[in-house]
């Protein structure tokens, strides 16, 4: 199953490689990983999307917790949560396709942020599923290039991840 893990970790140079090294050393999957400093600049927040059985994900959480640079780990799937990913996608938009791409972008509430005679660059945020759905709707052959951030997430409601 797909899980979203949210981590607080020390904002130190080696911290990212400790986390990614753990995943490769123990053969865990990483679907995506995003990281940036938090409102407290000494700490970073990382979101990891991984897949595995419940046992494996439990092990992943425990192993992450063991890393000395990791302050806290929460499996967002344990509660209601929000998930967003940003995608920039350059699509073919020549002739009759132009209108169709525009219409699809509107349906997905995407924004066209750059235009040439033959292409549109589209910005879209949403769950990773929604971004996939957009690519399917456009047709994979129309897609020239994509850049995705990977998912980031927060718990729903007033719950916050405290140190």
């Amino acid at each position, binding site marked *: 199953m797909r899980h979203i893990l949210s981590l607080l*970790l*020390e904002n130190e*140079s*080696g911290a990212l*490689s*400790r986390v990614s*090294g753990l995943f490769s*050393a123990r053969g865990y999957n990483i679907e995506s990983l995003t990281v940036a400093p938090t409102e407290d600049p000494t700490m970073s927040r990382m979101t990891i999307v991984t897949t595995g059985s419940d*046992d494996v994900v*439990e*092990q992943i959480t*425990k*192993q992450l*917790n*063991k890393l*000395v*640079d*990791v*302050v806290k780990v929460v499996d967002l799937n344990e509660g209601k949560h929000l998930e967003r990913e940003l995608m920039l996608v350059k699509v073919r938009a020549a002739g009759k396709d132009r209108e169709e791409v525009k219409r699809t972008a509107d349906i997905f509430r995407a924004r066209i942020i750059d235009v040439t005679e033959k292409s549109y660059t589209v910005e879209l945020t949403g769950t990773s599923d929604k971004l996939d759905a957009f690519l399917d709707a456009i047709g994979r052959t129309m897609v020239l290039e994509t850049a995705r951030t990977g998912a980031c997430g927060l718990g729903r409601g007033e719950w916050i991840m405290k*140190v």
Partner: protein
Amino acid sequence: MKLSDAPHTQNTAAEISGAEIVIRSLHEEGVEFVFGYPGGAVLNIYDEIFKQDKFKHVLVRHEQGALHAADGYARATGRAGVALVTSGPGVTNAVTGIATAYMDSIPMVVITGQVPTHAIGQDAFQECDTVGITRPCVKHNFLVKDVADLATTIRKAFIVAQTGRPGPVVVDIPKDVTQAKHVFAYPKDVEMRSYRPAVKGHAGQIKKALGMLVEAKRPMVYVGGGAVLGNASAQVTELVRMLGFPCTNTLMGLGAYPSSDKQFVGMLGMHGTYEANMAMQNCDVLLAIGARFDDRVIGNPEHFYQSGRRIVHIDVDPSSISKRVKVDVPIVGDVKEVLTELLALLGEEKARPDPAGLKVWWKQIDEWRAKDCLKYNRKSELIKPQYVIETLHKITGGDAFVTSDVGQHQMWAAQFYGFDKPRRWINSGGLGTMGFGLPAAMGVQLAHPDATVACITGEASIQMCIQELSTCKQYHMPIKVVNLNNRYMGMVRQWQEFFYGNRYAESYMDALPDFVKLAEAYGHVGMRIEKPADVEGALREAVKLKERLVFLDFITDQTENVFPMVPGGKGISEMILSEEL
């Protein structure tokens, strides 16, 4: 991070060099020995070592030796071992030793020199990415870029190495940081928000565990290295005796429960006793203490599941629980703390295991025991390795510190020495590092100068760190090297005999040195023993030579195998037994 208001030492207003800060920090930690080898990047530190005499520096002959020696010291004392090596090749030579300590959770602080900060990343002479290379085999590592952080970082390294599940910590110090100056203040407490190892176990879980234990019909206590590392041997022993349960120790746990006790059923696992493995497979309630259900212990987990049992697992590391085997009552905490609580609770509660039920179970265990699975041919004309170890036990009263290398000799030492106390049996169980035994014995001998320290080894293993015989001479370490010389990488040969149709590919040790002459060349005493009748006399003489390292080269039966044996991928009750039975 918050430093405690009252530092350990008075602030000396004067600024001192980073190198001196390193030395003063080690003094503050009460370090007795530093095992090391100099080089360009650590010369400032060595210059400060020259000026002090609070700790002794032990100059090894290869950095691997420094790490194993520090490791042996740590295993024998429970205090962090300290090693000091230079950048680049010093570090890469040390990696085997770091990984060895990591696999067995041994507390160590390893100080490594690094090229100056401005040269990092420039492919400078003797540069390597120490933090990157060691990351997967340390509990934690640090690169100190600012002399202002040096003392605090060293303090953190000692705390992290020695608390929770222990492990090696590397502190990488660029040369310019050892030159830069700063005032010295050694912090006592260092608050690390991201590092809070568990101590106390969950009271509810402990109660639940007790309930399960007293209901058991076919109970078993399985004790691992965590009980040794956590100094919980007294509590383990008390609990097992109060409950009247059978107890087994893992390779790493030997000595945690006394081997000579009647409730001890022997070591379990790949070369465990028949009775220990059968009891493990057939028990209905299993209490696992500081053990991790690893592949050499429970064999194939699918097979282990086939007979259901309920499991209570006490460990300081939550990630060791339910990693390979699902457990019913996990208790995360310091094993000693948890067992103390469990014992208190047992004292209060009236419930006890049903003696009639236990009697039936013990009867079954005694039947398994009667197989006498460790039996070997005592009438052989050739020296049997088992006999050498039994004799060593006899003449040292079972009270020696025993280190070993890796192979058949290691398993025979584990099976036949009969450890009654913790921290007496020192071997590389997790990584299985040949070359560990001799340098580890150096650390043990320094920690216990008057004790008999024996290194049980094989002619292949001993050659992997044999250069340390020179260190032993320099520092007058009267180690007894017990070389079980079968002219084979015996354990490899055994696998080739059992599983590769007797095709002994590259496992024959040709062109062996004359070990007696070799020992003498290093300034030690060498003996060659070729007949069973000479074994006891030679060992007695060696032990009597209190001031000398004695290299005993026992020419043993080449065909001897270690039994019982659980072949890889099999269940632990599917043992190959000796033909002697």
